[in-house]
Every structure is written in C-alpha cells, then in structure tokens.
C-alpha cells in the first residue's frame, strides 16, 4: 500500500519519522491508549457517536467559502477558505478534542489533561469536557496566557483548571513537558488529550484521523461547487494537525499540490522563528523523531512567532515524511506578513482569522500574482482571530 495516501502510520512510523521515544513509565499508558485506539478506529458505534457530536455539538460540516474580493485584491486565482473558524469554539481543535475525550470516556478515564499554546486546543478540550462531564486541567505557558488572555478566560468559564507553566520558554513546548509530567503520575485515571499531530505514537495517527474530517468534507465540497479537485491546498503548520487534516483529503491525488506554511517569526537566526524545515535538523522531542529546532548539542532551541499556536520547535512526523518524499512543500512567512494577511482578509471579506491561519493566507498573497487565474486554491482557515485582538492592539495594528 502507498503509505502516503492515508493518515495511518506504519506501526507508529511515517517513513523514518515518529516512534515512541518515551520514558519507561509512559509505556503502560501509551500501550493502553494504542490498544483502545486500534479498537475504536474500527468500531462503527464509536464512529457514529463521534460523527453525531461533530454534527450536533460542534456544528459540522463547516462551509467552503469563495472569497472573490480578497482574490481580486491580491490579483490571485479563485480562492476558497475551508471555514474551521466557524467550528464551535473557533478552531479545528475541537475535531480532535471531541474524538479523544470520547475515547477517554470509553477507556473509563475520569480526568483529562491537555497542553495549549494559542489556547484553542485548551478551549476545545474544556468545551468537550464540560459537554461530556469530565473534569479537566489545561497546562499553558505563562507567556501564552498573557498573549492569548481571552482564551484563558473562556477555559475557566467552562470549568477547566488552567495551570500556568513558568519554566523554560513558558510557551507550548513547556506546557507539553508539564502535561507529560502530570500524565506520568496520573495515567491510571487520566487521559492526556494531546492537541496536535505530534508526540509519541499513537497520537500523531489518532489526531490526524480525527482531523481528517476537514479533508474529507473539503474534497466533497470542492467537487460539488466546482466539479473538480483544487489545484493547490495551503495550511499553516504548528504541530501539524489542521494541515494534515485538510491534506488527508488530497494525498491520493498527485495533481493537488500541498503547501504547509511555518512561522517565520522575525528573523532567520535560530531562536527568531519556528520554521523547522529552515534548519533541516532532525532529532527527538516529546516522544517523536522528526525535524526539530535545536543547537548542535541537541538542546531544544527557543522559538519565536507572533502566533502562539505555531510557536513550537518540532513538526509532526507525517509532515517530516511528506517533506522528505516531496509530496508536500513547506515554506515560512514572517510575523509582519501574517499580520498584513489578517488585516486584508478582515477588510475585504469581513472574516477575522487567527494569526496562525493568517500565515497560510500570507503565503498565498505572495504567490497569487504568479498563479494561473483559472486555478482553484483552498486555504484552511484553521481558526478565528478573536483571541488575537489583545495582541493586535499591543502591536498597534488596531487602536
């Protein structure tokens, strides 16, 4: 079987990447999760329950919106946005949080923990847990708590305990560290609801599976609206979950070009960005062998991005493999380019997107004039931008 056409791993690996580089203590919960996941993914009842939640609680399907004023302004071809910003809680993250929380319930877990960067995964997990009646604890870097304050308030309103993480860089990576430490003590009753397509197996596969609903819907919508597949699909890449989610609908069609956009931050030097493919350096972080940002001693580098959700030093293993096999292309745009894209979409279409998603738009703005006008381009609009307003005010983008 061609391993690139599904989200399924080859025994925890995507090409060379992935694996389960975890302390011995986490072997037991990871094996239990793998077993539960392998059963659930083939269980029709589980799928029905999950699909019902997606439709009746989360609000799927999300629309595919053509944005002609935006397209004209950037002298581009036909542009469509997959509107994950319209999903309940405001980002694609809920697709995964609902799936994992249902699985946790099935495993008899009575507590959920999660990490969050932009706060969208935290909000999604808090919502899923409130809806399903499971207590939850969200770890969040204190830097991120400040820059994504509205999401902290939302999580707390939904009953989640939000625990600030002060050490290290006080961003997403450190929140993952702290969640893993909690889990290594609490796994008997606790599920760790990891928020992106990364970490040890089975997380990348499981998260990609839950996010593949984006690609499945999008493929069908594009066919219905245009009678054809898109020429190009663009998504931002933090850990990689929204990107693998939409890519998964098109992996089997080599005519569809796929582009992942990383956070170029404010400079080219290590520490000034979060563009993993810029450094082309590989290693192990958080249980997974992949491309990471590190110094020559294997110490994980600090990262920088205006977008908390992209501010992470490792990329999910599927993307590492898609990069090596040239099935997808990866590029980066700067903080300023992302801010500009957010503003332009807001002005031309009345859609305020997340700074993460704005990275995907920003790359499209760059290449738009060079594209054949008849082409159909889809951008995964992974989330909405309400959470970013304080940050935009601070940057004096808005008064």
């Amino acid at each position, binding site marked *: 079987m061609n391993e690139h056409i599904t989200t399924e791993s080859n025994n925890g690996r995507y090409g060379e990447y992935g694996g389960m580089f975890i302390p011995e*203590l986490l072997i037991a919960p990871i094996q239990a999760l793998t077993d539960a996941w392998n059963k659930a993914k083939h269980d029709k009842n589980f799928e029905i329950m999950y699909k019902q939640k997606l439709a009746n609680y989360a609000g799927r399907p999300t629309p595919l919106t053509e944005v002609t004023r935006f397209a004209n302004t950037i002298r581009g071809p036909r542009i469509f946005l997959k509107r994950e910003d319209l999903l309940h809680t405001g980002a694609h993250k809920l697709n995964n949080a609902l799936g994992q929380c249902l699985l946790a319930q099935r495993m008899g877990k009575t507590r959920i923990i999660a990490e969050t960067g932009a706060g969208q995964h935290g909000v999604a997990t808090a919502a899923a847990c409130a809806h399903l009646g499971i207590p939850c604890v969200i770890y969040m870097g204190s830097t991120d708590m400040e820059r994504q304050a509205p999401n902290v308030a939302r999580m707390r309103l939904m009953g989640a305990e939000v625990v600030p993480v002060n050490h290290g860089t006080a961003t997403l990576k450190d929140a993952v560290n702290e969640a893993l430490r909690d889990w290594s*003590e609490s796994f008997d009753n606790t599920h760790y609801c990891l928020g992106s397509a990364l970490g040890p197996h089975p997380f990348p596969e499981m998260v990609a599976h839950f996010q593949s609903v984006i690609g499945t819907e999008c493929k069908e919508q594009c066919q219905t609206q245009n009678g054809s597949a898109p020429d190009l699909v663009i998504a931002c890449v933090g850990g990689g979950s929204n990107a693998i989610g939409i890519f998964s609908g098109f992996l089997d069609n080599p005519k569809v070009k796929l582009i992942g956009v990383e956070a170029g931050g404010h400079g080219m030097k290590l520490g000034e960005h979060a563009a993993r493919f810029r450094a082309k350096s590989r290693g192990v972080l958080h249980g997974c062998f992949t491309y990471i940002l590190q110094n020559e*001693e294997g110490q*994980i580098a600090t990262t920088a991005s205006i977008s908390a959700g992209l501010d992470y030093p490792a990329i999910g293993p599927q993307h590492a493999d898609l990069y090596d096999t040239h099935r997808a292309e990866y590029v980066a745009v700067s903080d300023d380019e992302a801010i500009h894209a957010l503003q332009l979409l807001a002005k031309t279409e009345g859609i305020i997107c997340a700074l993460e998603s704005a990275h995907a738009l920003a790359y499209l703005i760059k290449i738009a004039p060079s594209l054949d006008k008849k082409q159909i381009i889809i951008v995964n609009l992974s989330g909405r931008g309400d959470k970013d307003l304080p940050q935009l005010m601070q940057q004096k983008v808005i008064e």
Partner: protein
Amino acid sequence: MNKAKRIDSIFKHGKAYVGYLTAGDGGMQQSLNAALALIKGGVNILEIGVPFSDPIADGPVIQRAATRALANGTTMRDILKLTTAIRKQSDIPLVLFSYYNPILANINPSFFDKVRDAGIDGILLVDCPLEESEEFHKQCIMRDIAPIYVLTPATSIDRMQLINEKAQGFLYYACRKGTTGMKNELPADLAEKIQLIKANTTLPLVVGFGISNREMAADVLKYADGFVIGSRFVKAIEDGVSSDNLCALAQALNPIGN
C-alpha cells in the same frame, strides 16, 4: 578493569550505593569535586546526568540543575572530559544518564568509542525504551558498555523478562509514578513489587526515585541490591554545599556497613 566487569564486581562484593549528579551544574570543576566527594562518601556507582533542555521525567530539583548546567554552556565534550578525569582518580563504575536527543545530536562513527575511552561503563537513556533502542543497544554492546534499562511499577511481567534479557549491568527500578524528586516515604507496595521483579529477572536490581534519607535506603536494601540517591545530592549542590559537607552527607545517607 573491563567495563562490564566493573559493574559486576560491585554486586559480587556487596550492595550498590548509586549517586546521581547533573554534569556541569556549578561548572565542570564543581562537578568533578562533587563526584569525588560522593565517591569518598561511599557512593560506589556514579550516574553522570547529561543536562537536557526538556527533561520530562524530572521534577523541579533536577530541572533546575539542568537549566543551570546548560546556562554554563555544558557540552557532551565537557562531560566526557569530566568522566575521564573522574576515571583517573577512581575505579568505580560510571553510568552516563541522558535523554536521547543530546546523544543523537552527538552521534558520529566515533562517538561510542569516545564514550568508552572516557571511562564510561554503562548508559541509561531516559526516553529510549526497548522499542526504539536497537541501534543504541548494538553500539553499546560492541564496546562492552552496559545498556541499562528502567523498570517501573507499571511494567508488566512479560516486559520485565524482555528487559532483563536485553539489559546488562543492572536493572534500575524507578519505584514510583511521576517524576524525580525527594519523598519522605517509600511506596507501600515496594517489597511486593521487588519480589515480583526478583522472581522474573536475574540481573542485580537497584531502586531509585525519591529516596532521600538513610532509613529509606536501609529499607530498600532489605529487598534490593542497591539504592539511588539523586535529587537529594543535586539539591545540596544547588544550596552550595562544600565538598567536605557533600562527602559527609553521602556518608550520613549510607546504611551500608555502619
């Protein structure tokens, strides 16, 4: 002395008193002084911790030590120089204790030779379980370096047996869930767990995670072949303990032979 033999001879002649240090905490000279002080204080197997930026299995004490060591610019080369210097003055087994990424980043065809030549007798990789350790394991065995593996309260009997078959030197039983750090009591199920491990494995067994006083160490030795003191020493170093006082602390914690 032959490497594997150094570890074996400890268990042949008695119990193991294993001490842990984060290399480079306070500078390399401080690490050398601390290592020698621990050895003088009775530690007979020394674990040299390689600092890592993201130590997910460690509690706050060792996290802080790693942060300080990295702020000092500690590199793998420094650490191998340290073990070489310790080896010049002592014949006790030295175990390199590391997360996988700092090792991966340094791997080149001669890396494991350098490790061997730096007097290291065993390597324990915190986040490289049996499922992922094939290449590392092979490199160790080829050079007579003992690959050391961890057992935990959650390790199944089948897995214990599998690990025992692969591992060399000794087995490290991390006796509780969670991260490293000082605790005041041993887990209630310790005796029972050790009996289970002993019934299913053949290698010597040392117990660590949270042992912070002499009574706990003495209790562990009723059932196991050795005990590990980590965070307690690292905390003393954080608090600026002198070499003499560190040696005295090591002696005071040691229930063997007094």
